[in-house]
């Protein structure tokens, strides 16, 4: 009787003791080898190709899958950023571009294995690239920008060699293969889960991974957290070595103030989406490492609908451009954390170079603004609305008030309109907003790419709805221009048209403020504007 009643308690005590002994040292050891990354967003799919996937999903896929090639990195003003011009092999051991630029040949690494142990073959590469250009997924539209449109372009030469043929010598074909979408999938594994309705296994790959990447999914809770563990066989970073961290925890913490507290207390290691004010105070305290990189492949602008009166009049657009309170906006919205795209001086009145985004010779000059309004036949001003979306409220709200105040001085009455994100994108798509602020980003930031995608055609990303045949023709021509000097000249022409037509007003490139524990090193600003977990390590 006594013995029976004694047993459960003893068991419990023994279990507890065992747990304590087993857990304590293991946890202490793994904390240093674990990266805890917190973010306001969340991962919603394991395949970044699924329509609706988030930027965190893009970043995660960089670590769970490999691509044929990857971007190198370079130092820009003392900070590491991705290098569009240096493309290195990832699954490809080496690659050749034929002299006419029409053939790309990739030789695969012999030692590369998928996470299930099977070797990576040219057949897998072909299946993955075919999937990217044929399946109804996001990769299709992206690869189109690199003249990759059909499965016929990918040819298996032997089990370790694959050849890509291009209709034109497109400069963006190779960089496109380093972007998020054309990841290399274990085709045998994926095909087992394909169905007649879904030959490319999109449903299965949304919830499972079949890659060869540096990290293996351990737990995936959409909207909460993802935990990945290191793939010990992966050696695509530095030869013979896997990624640094044994585990990475990607955790969603919606409240920015909480994210700031976590990283300051040392409970989180790395965060890239803090509020500018928090970054500033953390930087001032000096305990943490803050790496601020202007997002040089992005741009925040004020756009006007060039087809809608009164903004169809170029003088109205110019008037607005000279009436915006640039310095105040820059301080109020970003706390000055970014690269301004106003206040340049063009001594000869011509663009300084052919690079887009360019810094425009704009500053607040209300007299000039009034003159332009008079020239537009609207000396008394007019009324309009200025819209921004809720998601950007922390920067756009102070900005909008300053725009309203400043434009009131030249007689333009502005109503501020704050729209839920889905409403804002719907109205932009339907071209219904007269005057608004937005931000754009290009993974492959070349001048012609920006102009072709954001300033031509009657499509969603042409925010200003500008329809300028000359601009469209030059941008199209520049795409396949092999001569660097001529390309630069085209870029200058495009920038000059942009400035004189003023379809939209460039404001700035906000900083990516990466705040991290002082022991974290190797952080690099990547094209997808998220952290590549393979880059970082701990001292």
């Amino acid at each position, binding site marked *: 009787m006594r013995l029976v009643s004694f047993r459960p308690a003893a068991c419990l005590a023994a279990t507890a003791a065992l747990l304590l002994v087993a857990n304590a040292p293991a946890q202490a050891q793994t904390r240093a080898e674990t990266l805890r990354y917190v973010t306001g967003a969340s991962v919603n799919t394991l395949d970044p190709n699924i329509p*609706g996937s988030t930027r965190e999903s893009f970043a995660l896929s960089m670590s769970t899958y490999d691509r044929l090639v990857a971007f190198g990195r370079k130092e820009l003003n003392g900070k590491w950023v991705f290098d569009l011009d240096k493309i290195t092999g990832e699954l490809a051991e080496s690659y050749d571009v034929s002299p006419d630029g029409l053939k790309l040949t990739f030789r695969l690494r012999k030692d590369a294995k998928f996470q299930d142990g099977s070797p990576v073959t040219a057949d897998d590469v072909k299946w993955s690239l075919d999937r990217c250009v044929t399946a109804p997924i996001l990769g299709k539209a992206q690869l189109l920008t690199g003249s990759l449109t059909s499965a016929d372009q990918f040819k298996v030469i032997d089990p370790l060699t694959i050849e890509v043929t291009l209709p034109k010598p497109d400069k963006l074909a190779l960089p496109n293969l380093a972007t998020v979408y054309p990841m290399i999938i274990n085709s045998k594994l994926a095909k087992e889960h394909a169905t007649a309705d879904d030959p490319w296994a999109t449903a299965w790959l949304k919830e499972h991974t079949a890659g060869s990447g540096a990290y293996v999914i351990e737990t995936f809770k959409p909207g909460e957290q993802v935990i990945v563990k290191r793939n010990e066989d992966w050696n695509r970073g530095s030869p013979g070595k896997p990624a640094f961290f044994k585990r990475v925890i990607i955790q969603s913490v919606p409240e920015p103030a909480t994210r700031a507290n976590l990283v300051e207390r040392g409970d989180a290691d790395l965060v890239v989406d803090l509020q500018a004010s928090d970054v500033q105070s953390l930087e001032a305290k000096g305990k943490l490492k803050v790496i601020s990189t202007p997002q040089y492949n992005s741009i925040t602008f004020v756009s006007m609908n060039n087809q809608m009166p009164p903004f169809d009049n170029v003088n109205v657009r110019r008037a607005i451009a000279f009436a915006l309170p640039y310095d105040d906006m820059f301080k109020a919205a970003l706390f000055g954390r970014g690269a301004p795209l106003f206040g340049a001086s063009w001594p000869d009145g011509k663009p300084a170079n052919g690079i887009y985004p360019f810094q425009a010779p704009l500053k607040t000059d209300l007299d000039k603004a009034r003159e332009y309004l008079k020239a537009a036949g609207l000396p008394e001003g007019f009324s309009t609305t200025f819209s921004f979306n809720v998601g950007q409220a922390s920067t756009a709200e102070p900005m909008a008030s300053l725009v309203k105040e400043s434009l009131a001085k030249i007689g333009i009455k502005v109503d501020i309109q704050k729209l839920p994100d889905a409403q804002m994108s719907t109205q932009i798509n339907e071209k219904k907003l007269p005057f608004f602020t937005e931000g754009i980003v290009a993974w492959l930031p070349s001048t012609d790419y920006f102009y072709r995608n954001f300033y031509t055609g009657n499509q969603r990303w042409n925010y200003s709805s500008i329809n300028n045949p000359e601009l469209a023709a030059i941008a199209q021509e520049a795409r396949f221009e092999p001569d660097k000097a001529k390309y630069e000249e085209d870029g200058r022409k495009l920038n000059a048209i942009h400035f004189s037509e003023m379809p939209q007003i460039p404001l700035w490139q906000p900083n990516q403020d990466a705040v991290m524990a002082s022991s974290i090193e190797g952080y690099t600003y990547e094209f997808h504007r998220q952290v590549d977990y393979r880059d970082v390590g701990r001292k």
Partner: protein
Amino acid sequence: MTGLGATMVRAGRRLLSSLPALFGVLVFTFLLMRVLPGDPAVFFASGPNAGKEEIEQIRKQMGLDKSVPEQLVFYLSDIGHGNLGRSMMTGQPVLKDLRERLPASLELTFTALLIALIAAVPLGVVAALKPGSPVDHGVRLFCALGVCVPTFVSGLLLIYAFYYLLGLAPDPTGRIDVFTSLPPQRTGFLSVDFLLAGDVEGWWAACKQLILPAVSMALFVIAPLARITRASMLVSLGSDFVRTARSVGLSWRKVVITYALRNAILPVITIAGIVFSTMLGANVLVEKVFSWPGVASYALDALLSSDYAPVQGFVLLMASLFVLVNLVVDICYGIADPRVSIG
């Protein structure tokens, strides 16, 4: 036993009679979501290079290419088969999302309500015993403070004090420390699951995570509960039976607790039921501040991105819970006061 049987039959009848209301909620939410401006397809097709084709693709995937009556028929037949649709935001079936998140919200709300009741009822009783005294005014001040500080402010203040400054609380990120392994899921209530698994350390870790959010929610609802307890106690203390009980020399304890409080508790139960239902839906701010993976923050995110299925699923869930809570409140009436029967 016939009393219990009759109660069950009445409860069942009440559940049945609430079905038309639930159906109405279903159709109304469905239509409301479609009337709201904002096209989910355009929003979700927002990756670089997503053009017309991608938008059409998503529209088809969400079934938005069909007419609204057709969509409604499909939706109702799906619901009939127990399918609430798929969320674009998380990429998961809504039913799965809600099933995972509801226990988190319920655990938080129950704990908060428990804390609020434990604090509010004694406060109300004390205030009622000495109306107009400094104690009464103190309780009133405390309640006023609790109500006028919004939950996210009190939440952020608690985090600042107990996590950031003192380091007593664990980091405010969800239900459990990321480094703690989870117990096998039985009820979905972590504090219960840990106990069932016999993991005391884990149980304590889960409780520590729960305290701050529960307290910041409780602070907000103490006021209505304490005020109603006070008012109801005042009536009860001034009534004839209490005077009689006092005059026959019953102990203070017996008079206040057994006679006065038991008679005063009915309105408190009513308010507690209402408070519970509102808390469940309205704790979105606390959930956001503490990264609590609950249903309310899920619904808010879905609403902002015009993700129809989760919002509809959430409203349906809330309506069903409301029906259930009202039923429970009615049954509690019967226990507190045998004269009341639900009908």
